[in-house]
């Protein structure tokens, strides 16, 4: 039987959370509460909504032109069982998985380590506001590390760059993802 996962949000297609175009999943709930975190509304374990992992997988597989899934949050490794099921089922379907965690490897238990080892790329480490650097690819602060766990992207050159994604929906509503610089935040606020 498929497990339930507490989610904050999903984005069917994004180009800034890992290689290529990806389905992005923000889980709900994080006890790390890094000061200066961009996603504070994803900390509480009483917010968000539950989704069945198998339903979530169906949604992912119905999305065209994606090469993988990125799981972030919140803290994915605080829901290791459903996250592991999700990672394994996504991989079985032929897509790649990129996983974000604020934890360091020595802090992880066996199940959490299995999540890390089942992903293709892992971004690891707390967000540290004093080390914030918007010029880093896929990371928010310079202490966070990119780990190529599988061979899927071992030859991929990762060029550091600042990248932010702006989505305009069919009703002209604007949303922003990534780690924006001040000028961009100002522009978006003024739209």
């Amino acid at each position, binding site marked *: 039987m498929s497990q339930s996962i507490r989610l904050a949000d999903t984005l069917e297609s994004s180009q800034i959370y890992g290689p290529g175009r990806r389905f992005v999943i923000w889980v709900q709930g994080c006890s790390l509460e890094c000061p200066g975190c961009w996603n504070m509304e994803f900390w509480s374990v009483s917010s968000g909504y539950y989704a069945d992992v198998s339903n979530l997988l169906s949604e992912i597989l119905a999305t065209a032109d994606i090469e993988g899934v990125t799981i972030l949050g919140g803290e994915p490794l605080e829901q290791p069982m459903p996250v592991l099921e999700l990672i394994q089922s996504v991989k079985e379907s032929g897509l790649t998985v990129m996983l974000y965690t604020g934890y360091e490897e020595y802090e992880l238990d066996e199940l959490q380590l299995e999540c890390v080892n089942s992903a293709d790329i892992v971004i690891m480490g707390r967000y540290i506001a004093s080390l914030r650097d918007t010029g880093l690819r896929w990371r928010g602060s310079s202490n966070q590390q990119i780990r190529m766990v599988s061979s899927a992207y071992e030859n991929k050159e990762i060029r550091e760059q*600042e*990248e932010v994604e702006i989505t305009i929906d069919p*009703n002209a509503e604007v949303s922003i993802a990534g780690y924006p610089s001040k000028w961009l935040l100002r522009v978006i606020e003024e*739209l």
Partner: protein
Amino acid sequence: MSYRWRQETAPMTSLLVLQRALDQCGFQIIEAPAIMKHLALARKRVSHASTTHDKIAAYEELIDLIRQIDQTDSLPKSIKLDGVKLSLSNSFCYVAEGYSSNESTVAEMAAKSKITELNNVYKEIAAGLESELTQAMSSLESQLREALIKAVKAEQESYKKSITVARQEIFKIIRENAKKEGYSLKRHVFTAGKNAGREQYVVVKRV
């Protein structure tokens, strides 16, 4: 003693939909561009017309008004409502402002709740334009059906134009600022699936 409160509305691009939403929420318009008042009257004429002939004439008047709206400058800078003033704060959002007394915030809470209702009704009307056309097509009386379809199509067209103008404006603002700051811009338009109609821009600067 009293103080001024403010609340931002959801993004709005269409004067037509805004006028309908204000009307549906029961806002009393004190001061607004004449076109909004004319639209409200024309809609009333449609609903009050008792004969097919009168109804068709009322629809034609409404269609004429819809076509008069200049999409490049369709949203009024300000609209004075009973107890609340809406001011266009940026390209596509209004700020609702009113005064409240320190003794009681009942009126303020009621007004803010009406603004939330306005946001929801605006979205519902915009989302319902497609089904209005389907309903119009199943209308029984053929002459009336034709007039009704024309009116709904004019309304849909006007709304779509307002969205196109808004999206072009947003793109222009992002592009100009990105260029000024030394960023490149990648644009992607989704044409199929559940993302259809969405536009994504990735703003990139190599370090």
